């Protein structure tokens, strides 16, 4: 019994990380109807940036967030303004193909720079620290911290979206780009800021990913898929729905892994497909006005 409690708990906690993967993805889709296929690879890029930062400056991975987050935000802004803004429009193909091309470029660029060797960021004692929740049930401090950070990130995004001028600008531009222009909003700049915010979240997710597990240039697509599955399971248009979706995915994977380690990821896909078949709008969709 405690076995299963541990399994579910692990699943819930990793679900927070998946929710972070998903949050950046769904923000961009909400604001500019763009699905960034390179999203997962950008998470991995952030992990490598953190690697370089920690090695060059001799600081811990959590401290490196101070550098990695703004750096990735700037990269996001530049990426949007220089390349992705040109792909936006009626046609679905250009943004899809360009972000696909970006995915290939990032993966192979990282491969060329860092080789295919697995790397990991060392966070010290916090990685193995646990505390006892119940008899036989132990909670890792790091996963708990990561879960708390995920909640904080989602709450922060909600706040930005619904209580700040920037969030108003995002929502207005998403509703109607030409009318937003009439308000004095430069769409190119607004989209740039949205991508910057998305990559800031990606940076946080990337650093936690790097501390938690081995990473190499090829693991990007899987992160994109997990994020995407979390969004679909949770339902479009709702950040907290996405959070719930991440948890459902994490738990599904944990249960699958417990039955047979080779089934971990497959279990997640199956959960996704079941939701798609039975409740395609997701578990907690917010209906758009």
């Amino acid at each position, binding site marked *: 019994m405690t076995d299963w409690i541990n399994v579910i708990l692990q699943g819930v906690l990793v679900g927070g990380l998946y929710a972070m993967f998903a949050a950046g993805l769904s923000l961009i889709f909400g604001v500019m109807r763009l*699905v960034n296929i390179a999203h997962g690879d950008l998470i991995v890029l952030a992990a490598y940036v953190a690697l370089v930062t920690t090695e060059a400056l001799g600081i811990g991975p959590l401290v490196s967030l101070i550098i990695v987050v703004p750096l990735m935000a700037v990269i996001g802004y530049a990426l949007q303004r220089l390349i992705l803004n040109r792909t936006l429009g009626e046609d679905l193909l250009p943004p899809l193909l360009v972000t696909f091309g970006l995915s290939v470029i990032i993966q192979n660029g990282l491969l060329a720079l860092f080789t295919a060797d697995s790397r990991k960021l060392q966070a010290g004692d916090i990685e193995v620290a646990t505390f006892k929740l119940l008899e036989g049930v132990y909670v890792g401090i790091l996963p708990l911290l990561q879960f708390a950070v995920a909640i904080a990130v989602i709450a922060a995004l909600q706040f930005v979206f619904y209580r700040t001028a920037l969030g108003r600008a995002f929502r207005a531009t998403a509703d109607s780009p030409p009318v937003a222009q009439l308000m004095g909003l430069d769409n190119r700049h607004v989209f740039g800021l949205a991508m910057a915010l998305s990559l800031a979240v990606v940076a946080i997710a990337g650093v936690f990913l790097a501390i938690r597990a081995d990473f190499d240039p090829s693991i990007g697509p899987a992160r994109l898929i997990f994020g995407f599955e979390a969004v679909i399971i949770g339902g479009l248009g709702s950040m907290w729905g996405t959070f719930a979706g991440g948890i459902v995915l994490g738990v599904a994977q944990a249960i699958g892994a417990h039955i047979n380690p080779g089934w971990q990821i497959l279990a997640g896909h199956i959960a996704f497909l079941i939701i798609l078949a039975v409740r395609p709008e997701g578990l907690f969709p917010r209906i758009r006005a």
Partner: protein
Amino acid sequence: MSVRVAFASRSSRVGMALCAVALVVLAAAPFWGGRDDMQLLSQIYAYVALASLWNLLAGYAGLVSVGQQAYVGLGAYLLFAFAILGGVSPLWAIPLAGIIAALVAIPVAGLVFRLRGHYFAIGTWIIAEVFRLLASQVSVLGGGSGTSLPASMVVGIASTRQMRESLVYWIALALVVAVLTLIVLLLRSRYGLALKAIRDSELAATTNGIDVLRTKVLVYVVTAFGTAMIGALIFFQRLRISPDAAFSVNDWTAFVIFITVIGGIGRIEGPIIGTIVFFALRQTLADLGTIYLLMLGVVAILVMLTAPKGIWGLIVERFGWQIFPLERTVILDDRSAGRGKQRPDDR
């Protein structure tokens, strides 16, 4: 005054004549070429076919899939399963694999068509991943590390090695010709007209009585059929299969997409041009490995941003050529003037 629809144009007559000549030359390859030549040509045929099918799906039906590797791998695994478990000759296994893949594609379409646009694309990727993970669970076919085709299966198809290589080469050539013919026929049929309408405006197409969903499912299933057969053939030639190779995103989707983008999406000549360019680049640059893929990505992005219609798109814009007789021209026979007047109905 009467009206008829003609497909051929002067450039397409020239193009078709050139194709006929090329076909004769290529069919004779076992006589003028060595084994390496035939292998290279087989690879080119495979990519032309895969890219043409992807183009049908994405460029004509508007269904952008980044998961076609699902059917490449499925076709390949079905062939190996038939050969190893059923003792079925590969020659029969190829079309059989295609049919079964088409049947599998129907429920898959039922699932994945619940997603639209970008989400559909990622959905197709997930399906491919599911197929890959399932394949690595099948231990009789080698599980995660894969397996080889038994020698008896290979030897059984012809008496000499020379004959075997020629036979496999001709199958590859026949397959790509069949795929292209199938695509041309589809586009010339009323389904092809429906696709054009859907591509221009789905809403208008629906209100004109076109069953959009059925047309899209049809195209998806036909594409799965063709893709699986190509996959079966490719891995038959390789004699070895593994989940990572059979369901590789790079080999069966990234390259295919780049070929189609660079050659020209939404026109049937595009993938052919793109494959030629792709292989020309590969022969000259392949040694660069990762950098090669990286450069392909850069080129694809540049093409997408500056010349989204690809190389063939630029040629069409400039000269209005077509190689395959596909453009519908409405011809009005004006009896009083005594001559037919031509007015192309689209561009």
